[in-house]
């Protein structure tokens, strides 16, 4: 347990740490969302992006980033729990009647939403990063000839993953919870870091809600679009093409699908 | 008893410097051997305790509030006077001195008032250094506003919360000393007796209001800065906790009570609305700049104010004082309102109120201008009364506001009991028969920062430090205090102390308020013993399970107020003249102005406790005017 006596452990500095880590995590969430939205582009866009992430710095960068993210999460969560523990201790006997005036549900339940997001995160890693929870992950890597032994097909993995209505609903629900967390957190950090002054507070008060709406809308659009059947999986496109070719004439042995085929198959997708 | 003011001789301007040179000092190494008890943590007590601790003395402070910061100085609104002459409008120490002594209707000591004007300048400097956020001009310099009773602009202010800010300044200095261990703070402690050893003040008996324990505290000097006795009128602008107990119990021990009949009535307060009302709220006097004061011409006129035609209204101040009109001085305006209400012309429930009407001003200047000038006051009025003063006239009535009287002190602020110093509103010293606006804060801080630290040092230099509490005198005082509390609890009556307090206050207000007469005062003096008798028979003070017993605290204070009212009425009866706030109906000029009698009454009345069942004994300190010539105040 951190002691509050040292200036570096004062309530305000620790709140500042929560603000800084929260801010960085928001940047990560926004970046992650932007990457996710590549799904709406032709499949090689998101696949290329995924490949770039995996290969940057000869494959070391992703581990640095992962370590950094784990650290951010750990600090964000650890400090928050310590603060929350103190907050609970600060009012041992509650009110029989309590009528909050201005605080919204989101701001009063940051720990709850934070924990839900954390649990979701674990599931998300099991689901897509490690591919342990359902069969969609089998599409994650494909072998494409001797020049490119491993080809990342995140596109197919995501589309197959979100075809399951339960998984899609769960993701949407968790994004809403994440949105609630960001709604308060995205504005609150400016206060914790002392950036608010004068008219800035009105501005920073909008940052959280805007971030929340953008993240929820952006991330939820993917399962929704897939559920609506608007994004065919890359692998299906290949099969469809193969079927057309089969009708046309004697078919050669089925090739291992490659990026170039898809563009030809569905121009202007 | 010969009352010796101990004011130094010589030219007025040199008296204080001369006094400071004559006074003895205490070696820094010896200062820490002395212990001073300061009761009350308002402007006077807080500033005195902090300053004494800075000098190196050990200080204990006591207040009945839960924090020293809540003393009632905090409620002063307007400002604090100082002869800085920042406005280049001809102000000077001499002018502030003259204004104050004239405002006091020539019933104060020249030497004291001059010293007050002198140190007023240091007060502002001191407060600025502490970080008091005085109003500033765009150039960063201190701003001033004008106040009644002066033709120069010398009032420094922090919006409408000057008292609060000055008190927080003194409190911050006190906090610094508490942190350094030189001051021990005892909040929620009430002083219940003064302990005298060999005729010298040596300690106090207090009650810990949380545990209920009676405690003995000994010191080498005792400072009372416990404020005024306004609550003797029950309804006043004072805080509910304000009381006379500390000074009155010192009076019982032999301290003289001076000029208790000088009580200031403020003309613009929000009137009483019902029997349950506990408190009166002041509205700034500045409202009279644009508001017109009137009552209906027919008694008990129940029509809505806007339904009363112009011809049936009596703008009584404009009628009686054509040149000053609605801006007539405080005492004149207050008395005129009282007369109108006595004649049955008062408005509102109970008929104790007059209209303060802004309809003309709004027609003339437009609502936005009025809102700009008085917006916050109008809001406050609407918040309290639920009426919108832009639409219906305000109702106002005078209320008790400040007590010029208090324990008698000499030039060095020491009472007739050696070692007992009295500061601020609790003493009688500087305001004579009437106080000017923005002068109470000045006096409190002058006493605490710049006078008492010198004079207490001089006293301590002649005293051997370190007396304990294991003395029979402490045991006797403690037993006496315990006896009073036991008697209160043993009454086991059915009536709350508040009921008696309200009855007493109403009577003192009616018979000895804005105007007094021999008949009314004699009536009051006959009525008080009856209230006292019923009080002790029928007061209800139940025991509590814990130590805290607010009913007991209050009943004890009311008991003292009942006894004190007798001293007040006796003083008012004895002073057979009208001066300042003391208006005796028998002594007025043909046109209804106060008729002062300098030939026979140019003295301070100092009352000595006559003992159980006996009337108080009068001692006179004759006032000698060497430098100013008393003249008649005229408002025509």
């Amino acid at each position, binding site marked *: 347990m951190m002691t509050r006596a040292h200036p570096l452990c004062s309530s305000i500095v620790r709140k500042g740490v929560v603000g800084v880590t929260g801010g960085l995590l928001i940047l990560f969430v926004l970046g992650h969302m932007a990457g996710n939205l590549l799904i709406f582009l032709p499949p090689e866009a998101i696949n290329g992006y995924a490949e770039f992430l995996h290969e940057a710095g000869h494959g070391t960068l992703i581990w640095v980033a992962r370590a950094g993210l784990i650290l951010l999460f750990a600090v964000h969560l650890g400090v928050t729990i310590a603060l929350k523990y103190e907050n609970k201790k600060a009012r041992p006997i509650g009110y029989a009647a309590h009528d909050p005036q201005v605080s919204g549900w989101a701001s009063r339940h940051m720990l709850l939403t934070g924990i839900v997001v954390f649990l979701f995160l674990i599931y998300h890693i099991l689901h897509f990063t490690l591919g342990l929870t359902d069969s969609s992950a089998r599409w994650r890597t494909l072998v494409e000839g001797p020049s490119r032994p491993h080809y990342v097909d995140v596109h197919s993995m995501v589309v197959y993953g979100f075809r399951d209505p339960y998984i899609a609903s769960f993701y949407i629900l968790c994004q809403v919870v994440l949105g609630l967390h960001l709604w308060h957190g995205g504005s609150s950090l400016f206060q914790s870091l002392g950036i608010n002054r004068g008219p800035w507070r009105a501005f920073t008060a909008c940052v959280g809600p805007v971030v929340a709406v953008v993240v929820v809308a952006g991330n939820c659009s993917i399962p929704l679009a897939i559920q609506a059947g608007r994004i065919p999986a890359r692998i299906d496109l290949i099969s469809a093409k193969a079927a057309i070719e089969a009708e046309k004439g004697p078919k050669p042995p089925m090739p291992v699908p490659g990026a170039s085929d898809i563009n030809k198959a569905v121009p202007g997708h | 008893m010969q009352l010796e003011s101990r004011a130094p001789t010589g030219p007025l301007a040199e008296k204080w410097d001369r006094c400071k040179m004559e006074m003895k000092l205490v070696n820094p190494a010896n200062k820490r051997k002395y212990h001073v008890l300061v009761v009350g943590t308002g402007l006077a007590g807080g500033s005195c305790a902090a300053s004494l601790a800075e000098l190196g003395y050990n200080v204990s402070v006591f207040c009945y509030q839960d924090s020293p910061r809540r003393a009632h100085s905090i409620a002063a609104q307007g400002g604090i006077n100082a002869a800085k002459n920042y406005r280049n409008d001809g102000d000077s120490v001499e002018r502030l001195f003259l204004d104050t002594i004239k405002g006091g209707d020539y019933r104060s000591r020249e030497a004291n008032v001059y010293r007050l004007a002198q140190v007023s300048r240091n007060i502002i400097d001191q407060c600025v250094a502490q970080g008091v956020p005085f109003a500033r001009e765009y150039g960063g310099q201190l701003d001033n506003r004008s106040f009644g009773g002066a033709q120069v602009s010398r009032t420094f202010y922090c919006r409408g919360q000057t008292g609060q*800010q000055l008190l927080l300044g003194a409190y911050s200095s006190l906090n610094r000393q508490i942190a350094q261990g030189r001051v021990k703070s005892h909040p929620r402690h009430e002083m219940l007796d003064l302990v005298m050893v060999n005729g010298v003040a040596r300690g106090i008996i207090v009650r810990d209001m949380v545990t209920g324990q009676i405690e003995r505290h000994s010191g080498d000097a005792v400072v009372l800065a416990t404020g005024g006795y306004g609550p003797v009128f029950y309804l006043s602008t004072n805080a509910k906790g304000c009381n006379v107990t500390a000074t009155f119990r010192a009076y019982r021990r032999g301290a003289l009570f001076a000029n208790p009949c000088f009580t200031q009535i403020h003309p613009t307060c929000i009137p009483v609305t019902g029997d349950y009302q506990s408190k009166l709220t002041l509205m700034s006097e500045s409202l009279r700049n644009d508001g017109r004061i009137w009552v209906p011409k027919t008694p008990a006129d129940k029509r809505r104010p806007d339904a009363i035609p112009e011809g049936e209204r009596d703008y009584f101040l404009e009628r009686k004082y054509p040149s000053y009109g609605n801006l007539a001085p405080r005492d004149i305006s207050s008395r005129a309102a009282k007369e109108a209400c006595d004649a049955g012309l008062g408005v509102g429930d109970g008929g104790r109120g007059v209209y303060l009407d802004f309809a003309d001003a709004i027609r003339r200047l437009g609502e936005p201008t009025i809102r700009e000038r008085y917006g916050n006051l109008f809001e406050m009025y609407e918040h309290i009364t*639920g009426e919108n003063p832009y639409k219906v006239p305000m109702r106002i009535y005078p209320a008790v506001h400040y007590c010029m009287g208090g324990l008698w002190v000499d030039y060095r602020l020491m009472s007739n009991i050696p070692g007992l110093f009295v500061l601020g509103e609790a003493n009688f010293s500087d305001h004579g028969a009437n106080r000017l606006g923005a002068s109470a804060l000045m006096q409190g801080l002058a006493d605490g920062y710049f006078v008492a630290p010198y004079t207490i040092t001089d006293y301590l230099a002649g005293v051997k430090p370190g007396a304990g509490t294991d003395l029979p005198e402490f045991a006797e005082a403690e037993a006496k205090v315990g006896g009073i509390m036991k008697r209160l609890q043993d009454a086991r009556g059915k009536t709350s102390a508040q009921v008696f307090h309200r009855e007493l206050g109403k009577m003192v207000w009616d018979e000895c308020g804005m105007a007094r007469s021999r008949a009314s005062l004699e009536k009051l003096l006959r009525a008080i013993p009856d209230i006292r008798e019923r009080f002790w028979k029928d007061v209800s003070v139940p025991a509590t399970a814990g130590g805290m017993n607010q009913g007991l605290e209050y009943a004890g204070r009311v008991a003292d107020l009942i006894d004190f009212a007798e001293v007040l009425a006796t003083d008012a009866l004895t002073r057979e003249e009208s001066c300042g706030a003391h208006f005796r109906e028998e002594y007025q000029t043909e046109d209804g102005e106060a008729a002062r009698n300098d030939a026979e009454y140019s003295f301070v009345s100092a009352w000595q406790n006559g003992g159980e069942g006996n009337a108080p004994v009068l001692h006179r300190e004759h006032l000698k005017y060497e430098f100013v010539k008393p003249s008649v105040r005229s408002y025509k």
Partner: protein
Amino acid sequence: MKLHLKVWRQAGPQDAGRFENHTVEGVTPDMSFLEMLDVLNNKLLAQGKPTIAFDHDCREGICGSCSMMINGRAHGPTRGTTCQTYMRNFTDGQTVVIEPWRARAFPVMCDLVVDRSAFDRIQQAGGYVSVNTGGAPDGNCLPVPKDNAEKAMDAAQCIGCGACVAACKNASAMLFVAAKVSHLGLLPQGQPERSRRVLAMVAKMDEEGFGNCTNQYECEAVCPKAISADFIARMNRDQIGSTLIPAE
């Protein structure tokens, strides 16, 4: 008007305490909330029962003594202190729950009376300018920009009632401490001790057991003097700055 009160009664700091039900009749709209309690207390006295203890003094909204949670809201339904809350804001037959401020740093002493001496100790830790009586230079030696003086006054008008702590779900004292730190921090007189002051006062605030700020501004919403939570941001800046870049 008739009101049903559910009032917290607690004989002393060690007592467990409980709610007690009372009915007050003859309440009029012009009564203040405390006057309504006076009526109830007089009734209790007539029955020989101990009165309900509550802190109050000036009854004009400036001393900061009064401190009640009324139906879940610090100081009651309107902005301002309890003493400036009028019964016209309640309806006939209404049930009113009256509780003391709840915070570990504000232990209940008796009924509705709590111990707010933690506020005093926070100010003793550094809420002053170290200047002795006498020897202060002329008040106009140090010009203070009007805007700074006004802003300092905005902060300085805090009455120390503790409503901010009471309303905060974490019982945090940040608004109070921020007002005190900012008052002196905005003035030139306060600059020499600025870093030392904020570090000392925040350390004391933490030590006293107040909770941490979660930027919900409930404090600002109930503050009788409408002190802005911007001062909290200001104190955060001061504290973080003073921690990371210690004064020379």
